[in-house]
C-alpha cells in the first residue's frame, strides 16, 4: 500500500479518532445514560450458595407483583449453547433457576421497582428455601471420581474431552531432553470500565421489543433472545449504544437480558438492569482458568521433537451462548504448538464443569494461557541444556522462507518473519546488557530477570475454523452498506460494534482511501440490528479484516456507480473516468461526488434515461480469499526486579515487537497493544478470582480483585513490522488481542530467570507475593531474615 503525505487520512495514517470528540467531552451515550419514560429498575435475587436444591422461593408479602421467579417467565426457554463436537454434553442455563442452583450469583428471582435501591430492598426480603449440596469448585477435583455432579444426568463433570493423538514412544526413548511442568492460570473476571447493562421496551406500534444492551455483538443477542423468548427475529431490535470496553465480556447472551426483554413486554413499561461491580465480580461469566500437565521433548541442541499435553479448562456450570463451554479447550488443542516447528504433538483436553459461573473467551481467548505454557517449556528446555532461551526460540521458530506454513495442527501461517521479530525484541530490551547487570552487585533482596515470549495470533478466521471448533455461532460473510447522501457525504452501515477499537475512524479511513470523500463527512453507523447488515459482531480481532473488507467492497461498487453517472455528466464513457479524491475525473474535466449526489437524489431530470435505478446505496459483502485467518505475531520482552524478601515483582522495562500486516491506523494499533499489554500484566501478576472449597467467590470488590493501574503498567516500547497478509484486502491483519497474550509468558519467564540462581520456579499465575515466597520456601531458600 502506497503511503501518502502527513495530511493523509487514508490507510496508514494515524488519524485522530473521530469518536473521541464525544468521548473526551463526556458526551457519549452509554447504557446507563438511557432513560425512557416510565422505566423501572431490576434487581436480581442471586444464589448465595454454589450448589443446592431449590425447594421454593417466597415472595415478600405485599410485593408479590414486583417479584418474578422461573414459574412467572411463561414461554421463556433456557439458554442453550451446544458444541457440535462429538461427545459434548449439553447444559441448559435457566433464565431464572428452578430445581437446582449451580453457582453463587446465579439469578433466582428478579425484582422490579421504580429505582434500584427499592428493587434491592425487595430482593433482600425474598426468601429462598434451599437444601445445600456439596460443591465442586476445582476443575481437577471435578474430573475426579466421586466428585459432586453439577449436572447429575451426565454421570461426570466433563462437558467435552478431546484428543489429538500421536505415537510419541520412539521420541520418548531417544530424546536427549525431557522436561515436564505443571502449570496453572487463574480464573479471571473481565473488567471493562463499564459493566453489562440492558434497557428493554416493548414498542406497541411496531409490536417489537427494543433492547438496548451493552453488547459487542447485537445481532447475536437478537438471535439468542429470539430463541429464548420464542419470538420472530422481526419482533426484536437490539441496539448497542456507546460501550465502555468489551474484551469478550460483552460477547455473551445474559439471562439478565432475557429477563429484561420478557418483563418489558409483560409489564408494558420499560425496564433496565445495570450491572454493578459486585455482580461483575461474583455473578457473571469468568475467563482464563487452565491447568496444564505438559512435557516437551528436545534434542541435545534444544530442537523441539514433540509436545505432550493434558489440559483442563474450568468451564463453570453452564455452556454460555454463543461461544459454548468448549471453545477455550478446542483452541488450546489447536494452538498450543505456537509459532514453532516440530514433528509430533499429542494433546488431550477436558472442559470441566464446576459450581462456578460460566467461562467465556477474554481478549486473546486461550492464547494467553497457551503462550504462557509453551514459552515456559521453551525456557525449561533451554535451562535443561544450559542455553540462552532466546537461542532455543530462534532454533525452533518457523523460518520466513517456510511461509506460508502449515503447522502441526494444520494452522496456515500466512506471512511474516518470526525470528527477525524476536531478534528485534532482544536488541530493544538489550539482552546482553541485562545479562551484565545480573552479574553486578544489587541490593541484597533484589534479583533481576529477563524473559521473552513470542506467539502468533490467528485472527479474522472464518467459517471453516469455527465450524471445526464446533461452536454454535459460525461467522460467514461480512456485509457493509455504503450509502451516498444527497449532499455527497457517506454513510457506512456495519453489523459489527465499535466499543473502543476506533472503528468509526478506521472504517472511514478505508472508505476515504477508495472514494476520497473527506473522513469528516463519513459516518459509520453500527450496533443497531434495525439498520445494519447481520453480523456476528466484534470479536476475534476480525473487524478490520472483515468489516474493513466489506466496506472496501461496498465502496468499490459505489465508486463504479458514481463513475457511470459522472461519465454521463462529463459526456464521456465510464471506462474513461476514475474516482479519486472525492471527484470523478474524465479526459476533459471532472465532477465532484457532491454534485453527483445532488444530481441523483434531487435533479433526476439531469440523468440519462438508461441510468441504472440501483441508486447510490450499495450493500456488498466480503469473504477472505481463504478463511483460515490472518496471523499477526509479536515478540514481548520484559525485564523485572524481584524482591525476594517480599515476593514482589516490579517491571523495569517492557518491549513489544509486533507485526499486524499493513496498519490502517498505527496510532490506534499502538493503543490496542498497550491496552492489551496492561491486561496481560493483570493476568501475569494481579488478577485472580479465588473460590473456596464451598464454591464461594473470595473477591467481591476491587479491593480484593486487583487490577493493574497506571502505577503497574510501564511505558510499553512498541516497534512495528509490516508484512502484508497475502489474503486480505489491503494486507491488513487482525491485531486487537495480541497485547494481552504475551505478558504472562514474558513476565513469568523473566521472574523465573531472576529466580533461577536460587533454584526456584513459578508455574502458577498470577505471580502473587505469596506464590513467589512459597516457591522460594519450597526449594529451601529462606529469604534473608
Amino acid at each position, binding site marked *: 500500500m502506497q503511503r501518502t503525505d502527513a495530511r493523509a487520512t487514508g490507510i496508514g495514517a494515524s488519524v485522530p479518532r473521530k469518536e473521541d470528540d464525544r468521548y473526551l467531552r463526556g458526551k457519549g451515550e452509554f447504557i446507563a445514560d438511557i432513560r425512557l419514560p416510565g422505566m423501572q429498575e431490576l434487581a436480581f435475587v442471586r444464589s448465595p450458595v454454589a450448589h443446592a436444591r431449590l425447594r421454593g422461593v417466597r415472595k415478600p408479602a405485599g410485593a408479590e407483583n414486583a417479584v418474578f421467579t422461573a414459574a412467572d417467565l411463561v414461554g421463556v426457554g433456557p439458554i442453550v449453547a451446544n458444541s457440535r463436537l462429538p461427545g459434548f454434553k449439553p447444559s441448559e442455563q435457566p433464565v431464572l433457576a428452578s430445581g437446582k442452583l449451580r453457582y453463587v450469583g446465579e439469578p433466582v428471582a428478579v425484582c422490579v421497582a421504580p429505582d434500584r435501591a427499592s428493587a434491592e430492598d425487595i430482593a433482600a426480603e425474598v426468601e429462598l428455601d434451599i437444601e445445600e449440596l456439596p460443591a465442586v469448585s476445582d476443575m481437577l477435583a471435578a474430573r475426579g471420581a466421586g466428585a459432586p455432579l453439577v449436572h447429575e444426568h451426565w454421570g461426570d463433570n466433563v462437558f467435552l474431552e478431546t484428543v489429538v493423538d500421536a505415537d510419541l514412544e520412539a521420541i520418548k526413548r531417544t530424546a536427549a531432553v525431557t522436561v515436564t511442568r505443571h502449570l496453572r492460570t487463574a480464573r479471571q473476571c473481565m473488567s471493562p470500565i463499564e459493566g453489562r447493562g440492558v434497557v428493554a421496551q416493548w414498542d406497541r406500534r411496531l409490536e417489537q421489543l427494543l433492547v438496548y444492551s451493552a453488547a459487542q455483538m447485537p445481532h447475536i443477542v437478537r438471535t439468542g433472545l429470539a430463541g429464548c423468548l420464542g419470538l420472530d427475529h422481526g419482533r426484536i431490535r437490539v441496539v448497542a449504544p456507546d460501550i465502555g470496553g468489551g474484551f469478550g465480556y460483552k460477547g455473551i447472551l445474559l439471562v439478565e437480558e432475557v429477563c429484561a426483554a420478557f418483563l418489558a413486554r409483560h409489564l408494558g413499561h420499560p425496564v433496565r438492569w445495570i450491572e454493578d461491580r459486585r455482580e461483575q465480580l461474583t455473578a457473571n461469566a469468568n475467563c482464563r482458568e487452565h491447568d496444564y500437565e505438559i512435557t516437551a521433548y528436545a534434542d541435545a541442541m534444544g530442537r523441539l521433537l514433540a509436545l505432550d499435553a493434558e489440559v483442563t479448562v474450568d468451564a463453570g456450570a453452564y455452556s454460555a451462548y454463543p461461544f459454548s463451554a468448549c471453545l477455550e479447550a478446542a483452541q488450546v488443542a489447536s494452538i498450543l504448538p505456537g509459532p514453532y516447528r516440530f514433528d509430533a504433538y499429542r494433546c488431550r483436553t477436558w472442559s470441566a464443569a464446576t459450581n462456578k459461573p460460566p467461562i467465556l473467551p477474554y481478549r486473546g481467548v486461550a492464547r494467553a494461557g497457551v503462550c504462557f505454557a509453551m514459552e515456559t517449556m521453551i525456557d525449561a528446555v533451554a535451562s535443561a541444556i544450559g542455553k540462552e532461551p532466546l537461542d532455543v526460540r530462534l532454533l525452533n521458530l518457523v523460518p520466513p522462507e517456510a511461509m506460508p506454513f502449515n503447522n502441526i495442527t494444520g494452522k496456515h501461517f500466512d506471512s511474516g518473519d518470526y525470528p527477525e521479530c524476536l531478534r528485534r525484541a532482544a536488541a530493544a530490551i538489550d539482552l546482553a546488557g541485562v545479562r551484565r547487570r545480573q552479574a553486578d552487585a544489587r541490593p541484597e533482596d533484589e534479583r533481576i530477570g529477563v524473559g521473552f515470549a513470542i506467539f502468533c495470533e490467528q485472527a479474522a478466521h472464518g467459517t471453516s475454523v469455527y465450524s471445526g471448533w464446533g461452536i454454535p455461532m459460525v461467522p460467514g460473510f461480512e456485509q457493509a452498506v455504503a450509502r451516498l447522501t444527497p449532499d455527497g457525504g457517506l454513510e457506512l452501515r456495519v453489523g459489527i460494534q465499535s466499543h473502543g477499537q476506533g472503528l468509526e475512524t478506521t472504517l472511514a479511513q478505508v472508505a476515504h482511501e477508495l472514494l476520497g470523500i473527506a473522513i469528516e463527512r463519513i459516518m459509520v453507523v453500527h450496533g443497531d440490528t434495525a439498520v445494519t447488515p447481520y453480523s456476528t459482531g466484534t470479536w476475534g480481532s476480525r473487524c478490520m479484516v472483515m468489516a474493513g473488507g466489506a466496506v472496501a467492497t461496498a465502496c468499490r461498487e459505489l465508486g463504479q456507480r458514481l463513475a457511470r453517472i459522472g461519465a454521463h455528466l462529463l459526456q464521456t464513457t465510464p471506462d474513461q473516468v476514475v474516482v479519486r479524491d472525492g471527484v470523478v475525473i474524465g479526459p476533459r474535466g471532472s465532477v465532484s461526488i457532491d454534485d453527483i449526489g445532488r444530481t441523483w437524489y434531487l435533479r433526476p431530470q439531469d440523468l440519462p434515461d438508461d441510468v441504472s435505478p440501483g441508486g447510490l446505496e450499495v450493500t456488498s459483502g466480503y469473504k477472505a480469499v481463504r478463511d483460515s485467518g490472518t496471523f499477526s505475531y509479536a515478540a514481548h520482552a520484559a525485564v523485572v526486579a524481584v524482591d525476594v524478601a517480599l515476593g514482589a515483582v516490579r517491571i523495569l522495562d517492557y518491549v513489544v515487537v509486533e507485526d499486524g500486516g499493513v496498519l490502517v491506523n498505527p496510532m490506534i494499533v499502538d493503543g490496542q497493544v498497550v491496552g492489551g499489554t496492561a491486561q496481560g500484566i493483570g493476568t501475569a501478576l494481579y488478577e485472580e478470582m479465588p473460590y473456596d472449597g464451598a464454591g464461594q467467590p473470595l473477591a467481591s470488590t476491587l479491593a480484593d480483585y486487583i487490577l493493574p493501574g497506571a502505577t503497574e503498567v510501564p511505558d510499553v516500547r512498541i516497534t512495528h513490522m509490516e508484512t502484508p497478509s497475502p489474503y486480505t484486502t489491503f494486507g491488513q491483519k487482525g491485531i486487537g488481542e495480541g497485547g494481552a497474550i504475551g505478558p504472562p509468558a514474558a513476565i513469568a519467564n523473566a521472574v523465573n530467570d531472576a529466580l533461577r540462581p536460587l533454584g526456584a520456579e513459578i508455574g502458577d499465575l498470577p505471580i502473587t*507475593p505469596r506464590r513467589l515466597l512459597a516457591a522460594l520456601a519450597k526449594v529451601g531458600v529462606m529469604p534473608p531474615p
Partner: protein
Amino acid sequence: MKPAPFDYARPTDIAEAAAILAEGGADARVMAGGQSLGPMLNLRLAHPRVVVDITHIPDLGGVDDTADAVLLGAAVTHAAVEDGRVPDVGDRVLSTIAAGIAYRAVRNRGTVAGSLCHADPAADWVTALTALDACVITYRARGGRMIPIDIFNRGPFTTALEPGELVVAVRIPKLSRAARWGWYKVCRKPGEFSDAIGAVLIDPERNVRRAVVSATGGRPLLLRDDDASADAADRALASASNRFDAIDRQVHRVALRRAFAAARV
C-alpha cells in the same frame, strides 16, 4: 449495590451530634468523609437507622498547635495533612503518611479521625498514630475522655467508644529534633490496602522507642523500648496469632526491618 433506607442527620454542633448518637445507640453511625462507611452502606454491610454527618460542625474542622502536640479536629482530611494545610508534628511525618493513603480522591474526603474510628487493622493512621503515641479526644454528655490509641483500638473494626460518644479531635505528640522515624508499607499496588506495615519511632530526647507492626488481622502489635525490634516482633507474631503462617510472618518481619532501616537504626 445501593444502600438500604436510612435517616440522615446533619447536626451543626457537637452536643447535638452526640444526642442523636445517644438516641440511636447501635443503630446510629457517624459519617465524616464516608470513604469507608459509604461503600459499606452500598454493599449493605452496614444497616444504620440514622447516619450522622459531622462535617457541618464548625468546631470539628479546626486544629490546635501547642508546645508539645498537634490537635486535629475530627473533620480534618488526609489531604489537608498531606498538603501541609495543618501543622505537622515534625520531620514531615504526618504529611508523608497521609500521601500514601489510598488515592487522592479518597484523601480529599477521608478523615484522620474517621480512619481511627473505622479501625481497619490495615489502616495507615491506625498504625502510624499507634507508633506516634497519639490520643483521641472524645465528647460525651457526661464528660469527654482522652484515650490513647492503643486503648481506643480494641481490635478489628472495634473501638472503645460508647454510645453517644463522639471523637472530636486527635492529639499527636510532637517529635523532638533528634527523632528518627521509619515507615514501610507492603501492598500490591499504590493505593491498595496494605498486607503489612512496619512503623518505627526513635526519639531519644523524649525517651521514646516504639515499633509497630500492623495489618496482622488484629490490633497493631506495639513494641516498646527494648522490645522494639524485628526479632521481638517475629516472636510476638509467631505466638500471638494462629492466623499467621511462615509467609505472613516473613512479610511482616521484612516490613518492620525496612522501617527500622528507614529510621537509620
